[in-house]
């Protein structure tokens, strides 16, 4: 009796919580997404009419932001991977006794609010910052080019903010690699690059998968970087959802967009995880 009951007793509070505050809201979101404005009602009053066309309308209207969200998230993920992989490798294999210190340094910027840091980037890259004048005097950018309010700034900001989420899982899986396997590969006539491609990378795949997911998912739904570092031309889906909720009070469209974003991410994640061949994520 006890043996059968224990796991369920342990699960009930947490799972109940998820049921009420995660599944129920998602269900409610799906419900809201097909509502239409109430006839003669005030702004923000809606009734259920099961209008699936809400989705078509919402997606069509915001196709640019949709595309931008996934494009920016993709570029962000690739950049973060390119920066974080060598970093994680360096910590794991060259860190020596400073390994723990370096790990702490990766996480430490978290404690300065990410908003403060993002705004710091805005000011560093802005007209009053020191980067723009230097680049201009070196004639790398023209007098009229700005760094902020650009896709570049948004992607850079996201790459920056999600870098620790990429680095930590990568580190965890690279650190588990027995350095002797790398020596063995060298011993068996593989050069540095082949060793990386045939031994290091495959062994660190779980970290790559976890890191890219932990970067891509929040990046695709982000709107803070676009709001601070971008311009109206760099608006992402998150910005639209946010403004539909708070400014326009168009709940059905916001819900339809949220639901579509979630579904799109889940589909992409499923395909990606299947391809990468790592089922054990959690």
């Amino acid at each position, binding site marked *: 009796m006890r043996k*059968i009951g*224990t*796991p369920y007793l*342990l*699960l009930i*509070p*947490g799972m109940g*919580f*998820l049921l009420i*505050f*995660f599944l129920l*809201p998602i269900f*409610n979101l799906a419900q809201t997404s097909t509502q239409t404005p109430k006839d003669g009602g005030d702004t923000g009053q809606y009734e259920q009419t099961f209008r699936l066309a809400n989705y078509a309308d919402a997606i069509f209207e915001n196709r640019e932001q949709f595309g931008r969200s996934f494009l920016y998230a993709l570029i962000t993920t690739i950049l973060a991977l390119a*920066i*974080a992989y*060598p*970093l994680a*490798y*360096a*910590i794991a294999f*060259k860190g020596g006794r400073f390994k723990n210190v370096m790990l*702490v*340094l990766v*996480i*430490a*910027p*978290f*404690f*300065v*609010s*990410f*908003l*403060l*840091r*993002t*705004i*710091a*980037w805005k000011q*560093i890259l802005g007209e*009053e910052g020191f980067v723009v004048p230097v680049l201009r005097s070196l004639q790398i950018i023209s007098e009229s080019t700005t760094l902020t309010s650009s896709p570049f700034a948004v992607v850079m900001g996201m790459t*920056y903010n999600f*870098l620790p989420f990429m680095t930590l899982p990568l580190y965890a899986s690279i650190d588990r690699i027995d350095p002797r396997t790398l020596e063995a590969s060298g011993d068996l006539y593989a050069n540095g690059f082949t060793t990386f491609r045939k031994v290091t990378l495959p062994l660190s795949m779980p970290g790559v998968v976890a890191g890219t*997911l*932990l970067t891509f*998912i*929040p990046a695709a*739904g982000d*709107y*803070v970087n676009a709001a601070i570092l971008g311009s109206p031309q760099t608006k992402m889906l*998150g910005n639209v*959802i946010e403004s539909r*909720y708070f400014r326009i009070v168009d709940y059905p469209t*916001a*819900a339809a967009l*949220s639901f579509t*974003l*979630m579904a799109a991410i*889940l589909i992409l994640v499923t395909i990606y995880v299947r391809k990468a061949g790592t089922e054990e*994520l*959690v």
Partner: protein
Amino acid sequence: MKTISRWFGRNLIRIYAAIAFTYLFIPVAYTFVFSFNDSAKSNLIWKGFTFANWQNPCGAPEVCTALGNSIKIGFLATLFSTILGTMIAFAIGRHKFKGRSSTNLLIFLPMATPEIVLGASLLSLFLVFQINPGFWPTVIAHVLFCMSFVVVTVKARIASLDPRLEQAAMDLYANERETFRRVTLPLVAPGIAAAALLAFSLSFDDFIITNFNSGTMTTFPKFVYVSAARGIPAQANVIGSAMFILALTIVILGQFVGRKRKVS
């Protein structure tokens, strides 16, 4: 020339790491430097050095209320998510039961859902039940997104536990409850502590979900975001820098104590 290029070749990865760390720390340094800016309102342009902001961190209106709220919410969210998440981690990590894979999926889903969707859907639910956004809705929202991270962290620690240690305890006359209390729990404790730390930092730094569910209540990230338009007071930089220094000190002290205990 040749020796220089060889030095670069050998230390390429270290140079790379140094550059990456510089990238990570540029805005931190900027925030820190500008916490000393002698500028009354907008902290955009360097006006001169002062300690005034550090001497009076609550000088800017609302900033300390916001900080207080963030700490309270972070503490409660950490407490609840750590308890709930640890229980789930033990259920998954130590027991075989029906529905284990769907449980795993349900844990993973909140992590695979963008924060904006989590925040927006939760807000919709609160509106349906006519619950006003505010302190407790925010705590609930934070527990929601922290819990999955707690489960994953604690589960990893449980998985790395040698089952022979628990068997040894049973062999040495400890019954199931004593085995859990004397062996399993102490060995999993570092994982639980790490999970709690992670939960607190996620909660403390969260903006998106908070923005949806906090209503008129302000938190530190919200304060920063809202005041960004008219210029952030230097006190915000003081608080950010202080949190950074505090966290770093705690971690380094923890390391130091841990190492000392190992040696003696």
